């Protein structure tokens, strides 16, 4: 098989997964989940979507982990009139990078989120009131505990693959070292084993914007009247970190929004196109996201540090048994390539099966959500090969590929 055996043009047209319905399940009903902070929570409602069919061997499941403000709606349309498909629709579907003809895809909203899974905006069954800032402190590890439980609930012993970008990539890493037996392959995209100090800095400013909004009221705001200015500002700041200098220049440049001339009016909020764009992003975000969730999840992202948790990055990596695919983007300055390289080196140090590649794309950190084809070109064979090797492993016919275990 060579790179040229499947030319792009010869591929049959790909197809969306169509209309999808989210599902919910209540987990940790008998005994609550103990979080890293020591606090407990339960039951936990999880909203998730699935695409494709789980085969009889139950060995074709792929779990997709979403990023900071993503949701369970990774692919397809919610209804026939839906304007926009799920956030990774271009990657998931018939004939796409994750082919739903062959694989069963699961995506769940994270613990602490606000799109169907238990989070600060949910009602605490013990008090009858919303958790708000009484929600227990949350880490990436806790998010993964819930994902892992969902997989067990779905009666899947071992996932063929887990894949995620950004905060989703952190979940993938955490999962691969916490529950190694549950995973055959891990795909980490535009992510790292920890957020840089610069990344924490931007998160800090975002949170400060929310705290400083008079409507925040220590988290006790009416959900109908949230701290929208603070939350919008948090989003605007974060959004800049998702773009690149080149992409902003290319898309907006110094162009003005409504006029060819400066207004010389200090009260005019938006003059440049980039201003208008960021305002729009902020406004739209407020409609779909909860400020308290933003505080919790951005903190979880700050706290995540695989090195810190296991002394060294190599020690953390050593726990994993799956194979890895690490992908970075040359214009991503939130999770720069150097981080992916550091991770790759650590994985090699403990003799893991690891492939690493930097893709060229001008869209900065957001590239993983925009420029899907080059990513699909890597993910598709990576998953297919894992699946084939897993089958050989299970049927014991493997002479050529011994199970990948640590230390060999």
């Amino acid at each position, binding site marked *: 098989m060579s790179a040229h055996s499947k030319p792009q043009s010869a591929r049959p047209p790909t197809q969306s997964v169509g209309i999808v319905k989210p599902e919910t399940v209540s987990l940790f009903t008998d005994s609550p989940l103990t979080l890293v902070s020591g606090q407990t929570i339960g039951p936990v409602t999880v909203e998730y979507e699935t695409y494709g069919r789980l085969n009889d061997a139950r060995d074709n499941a792929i779990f997709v982990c979403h990023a900071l403000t993503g949701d369970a709606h990774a692919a397809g349309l919610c209804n026939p009139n839906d304007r926009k498909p799920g956030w990774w629709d271009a990657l998931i579907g018939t004939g796409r990078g994750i082919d739903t003809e062959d694989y069963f895809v699961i995506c769940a909203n994270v613990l602490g989120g606000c799109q169907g899974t238990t989070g600060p905006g949910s009602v605490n069954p013990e008090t009858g009131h919303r958790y708000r800032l009484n929600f227990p402190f949350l880490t990436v590890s806790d998010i993964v505990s819930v994902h892992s439980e969902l997989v067990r609930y779905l009666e899947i012993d071992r996932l063929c693959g887990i894949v995620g970008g950004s905060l989703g990539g952190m979940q993938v890493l955490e999962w691969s070292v916490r529950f190694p037996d549950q995973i055959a392959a891990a795909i980490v995209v535009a992510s790292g084993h920890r957020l840089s100090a610069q990344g924490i800095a931007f998160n800090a400013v975002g949170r400060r914007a929310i705290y400083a909004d008079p409507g925040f009221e220590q988290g006790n705001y009416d959900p109908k009247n949230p701290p929208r200015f603070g939350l919008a500002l948090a989003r605007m700041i974060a959004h800049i970190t998702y773009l690149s200098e080149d992409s902003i220049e290319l898309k907006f440049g110094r162009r003005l929004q409504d006029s060819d001339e400066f207004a010389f009016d200090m009260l005019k909020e938006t003059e440049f196109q980039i201003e208008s764009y960021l305002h729009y992003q902020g406004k739209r975000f407020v409609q779909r996201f909860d400020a308290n969730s933003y505080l919790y999840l951005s903190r979880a992202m700050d706290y995540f540090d695989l090195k810190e948790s296991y002394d060294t990055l190599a020690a953390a990596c050593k726990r994993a048994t799956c194979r890895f695919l690490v992908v970075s983007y040359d214009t991503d300055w939130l999770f720069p390539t150097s981080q992916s390289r550091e991770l790759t080196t650590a994985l090699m140090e403990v003799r893991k099966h690891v492939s690493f590649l930097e893709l060229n794309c001008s869209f900065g950190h957001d590239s993983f959500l925009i420029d899907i084809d080059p990513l699909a070109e890597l993910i598709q064979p990576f998953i297919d*090969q894992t699946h084939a090797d897993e089958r050989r492993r299970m049927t014991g016919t493997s002479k050529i590929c011994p199970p990948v275990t640590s230390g*060999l």
Partner: protein
Amino acid sequence: MSVSNRYQLPDISVRLTDELIMQHIDESSRVIDLGCGDGRLLERLRREMNCRVQGIDVERSNLVSVIQRGLPVIAANLDEGLTDIPSSSFDFAVLSQTLQQVKEPRQLLTEMLRVARRALVVVPNFGYWRVRMEVLWHGRTPVTSNLPYEWHESPNLHFMSMFDFRDLIQSMGLTIVKESPIIRGHAVDRAWAANLRADSVFYLLEQRLQ
């Protein structure tokens, strides 16, 4: 005179290099192939010799091909060294027909023996008599058959002979465990006037024992 009309130093066949390299690699050992191309050799090493393999290449199409074989591969530019590869993580490092193309061959050889116990290298011998004739009669710089480029566009940056290569290895304090001149498509253990008669040479190198 166009490049196509000139004598082109033959690049030894892929089959021969693969066989030569595989002969000198232990079963079930850990092997890193620098400039692994589409992963052909890596797959044979895994299938036929149960090796734990790792590829390095710079071309995206090559990386995809290696992944399609279910093998691990890392994107890296050999000119930038092997900084991502941990020390002593492999038994063998393979570099086939590429050393003359990297900016700093000496540094790359050092790096190979940092990451692996032994280095396997196949290099062209620009001391081959036909190359000498080309220079002598036509006054033209040597060209290889896989890289029939003019001097200003050729990826071949260094033109060394077997003697030159030996000098480098000696000056680096490395040991030549094995030297096989390749004469008319056959690797031989030793040969009379090898520097004149061999078009390529296979080397197995290691750090000099302290």
